[in-house]
């Protein structure tokens, strides 16, 4: 009988270990879906959730604090996303917090990022709706970047024409200065350049934001990109883009000076027309713009060839073919 009881003891230990392991697994999985522990609910309304799914993570200032519980379509432009958040976050999330849909790195799943607001609004309560900001997703951003690039190319050709006219001789210069239509077009061009460099700047900031996200260590895609060569490549491309934009900025500043000089009355105008060095300078500036834009183009090209973006650009091409 002794043998049987020791057998039963060992069997009991085995059964308990097995059951406990099963429960631990169930708990570990469940706690990731916030099925246990104290939670509260908040919601946010979006126009587009970019493929967010129920069960995706919710981050507050980068920390995973909950999951997406339910996504419901309210009408054709409004989607309500309900989130379950750990209760202890009640102490930190304020009513002016902003929810954005983002992706967990470039290849990761979608997440909701909650960023603290600037003010000192009261803390959220369960059931509150917080503000949302449909942040430009990677796709939209790349789209903007592409448009910016095309605009830059157009401008460069415009500027080239103008510069050629300037270089062609005094008569032309005179005509340029007298011809209001021409002058207007020049102004327009300069404004456009300003606009473009502004856009490029915003885009760069957004890219920077993404890159920061990528660097975020816990994100799987971040780790993926940090270990991979392609990640480094993307960084290099982005750095190049940044340089190009800085150059465009400088050029714009130069042009600004020119324009203000022109604006500043006849003295300046005389100075402009008589001083050949200035004309040379203008010419050099134009050349720089050309080079800058070219490099910008190359960088865009490089970005297109990067495997991560390849799919996106192909899609663009296909769409372009389909809609002539």
């Amino acid at each position: 009988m002794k043998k049987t009881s020791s057998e039963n003891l060992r069997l009991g230990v085995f059964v308990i270990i097995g059951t406990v392991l099963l429960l631990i697994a169930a708990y570990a999985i469940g706690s990731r879906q916030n099925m246990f522990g104290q939670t509260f609910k908040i919601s946010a309304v979006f126009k587009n959730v970019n493929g967010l799914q129920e069960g995706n993570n919710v981050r507050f200032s980068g920390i995973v604090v909950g999951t997406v519980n339910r996504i419901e379509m309210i009408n054709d432009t409004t989607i309500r996303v309900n989130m379950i958040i750990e209760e202890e976050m009640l102490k930190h999330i304020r009513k002016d917090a902003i929810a954005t849909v983002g992706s967990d790195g470039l290849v990761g799943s979608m997440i909701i990022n909650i960023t603290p607001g600037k003010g000192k609004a009261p803390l959220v309560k369960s059931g509150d709706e917080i503000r949302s900001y449909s942040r430009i997703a990677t796709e939209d951003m790349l789209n903007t970047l592409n448009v910016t690039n095309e605009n830059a190319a157009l401008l460069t050709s415009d500027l080239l024409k103008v510069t050629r006219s300037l270089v062609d001789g005094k008569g032309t210069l005179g005509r340029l200065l007298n011809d209001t239509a021409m002058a207007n077009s020049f102004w327009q061009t300069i404004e456009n350049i300003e606009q473009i460099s502004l856009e490029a700047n915003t885009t760069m900031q957004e890219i920077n934001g993404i890159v920061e996200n990528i660097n975020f260590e816990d994100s799987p895609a971040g780790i993926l990109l940090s270990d991979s060569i392609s990640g480094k490549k993307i960084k290099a491309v982005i750095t190049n883009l940044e340089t190009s934009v800085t150059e465009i900025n400088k050029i714009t500043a130069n042009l600004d000076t020119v324009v203000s000089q022109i604006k500043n009355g006849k003295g300046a105008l005389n100075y402009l027309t008589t001083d050949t060095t200035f004309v040379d300078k203008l010419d050099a500036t134009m050349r720089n713009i050309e080079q800058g834009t070219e490099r910008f183009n190359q960088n865009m090209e490089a970005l297109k060839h990067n495997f991560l973006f390849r799919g996106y650009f192909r899609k663009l091409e296909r769409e372009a073919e389909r809609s002539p």
Partner: protein
Amino acid sequence: MSASLQIVEKAKTFLIEIGDLSFFAGRFFKELLKAPFEFKELLRQCYQLGYRSLVLVGVTGFILGLVLTLQTRPTLIEFGAVSWMPNMVGISIVRELGPMITALICAGRIASGIGAELGSMRVTEQIDAMEVSGTNPFKYLVVTRILATTLMLPLLVIVGDAIALYGSALVENFKGQVSFQLYFNRAFDALGYSDLIPATVKSFFFGFVIGLVGCYKGYYSKKGTAGVGVAANTAVVFTSMLLFIIDFVAVFVSDIFYDL
């Protein structure tokens, strides 16, 4: 006899086998519901079939975890995705490899063991002796064994899974300086109930089949010592085949329920 006739014959034998096995399973459920219940023998079989397979399952699981990680490591490094190792290993072990490898190991150990044991009991008239002693041998021998394997296999699978994951984490810890906490965090991140529940349900069926086929082959073993060998051998072969079929069906069914 022409080849096609032989194939027809083989298919017929197979179908008869399946039919007999179904009747056997039906008898199991019928006897299961009738009193008296052989609880002490059930515990003994749980110990014999479950606990005593633990070392085997543990060692196999550990090696499975090690090997799986070591083998996939270079490829994942090439793709720069070595940090996805816990997710990959976690999902593949919990969903498929853990239950399947454990079940196959148990088919080799338990199904053949039951086949040989019941076969030799049949041959040496021990089963008849039981019946004459007023104990229903089907209840005492078959019901307890099938029930024991059905209950024990999921436990063996979960322990095997845990040990396999530990083995994998050990490699990652050693080669990739990934802490155990991070490893298991990421592994559980990748897992959902849609992985754990179908795998556990599947394990019950695996256990049932291992016990059922082992008992069936042993209980109807042919006379003579050769019959015992045949019973043990065919028990393993038949069980392994059925395991794969059940696995296939299980994937389909869990696909319907969980939309994988």
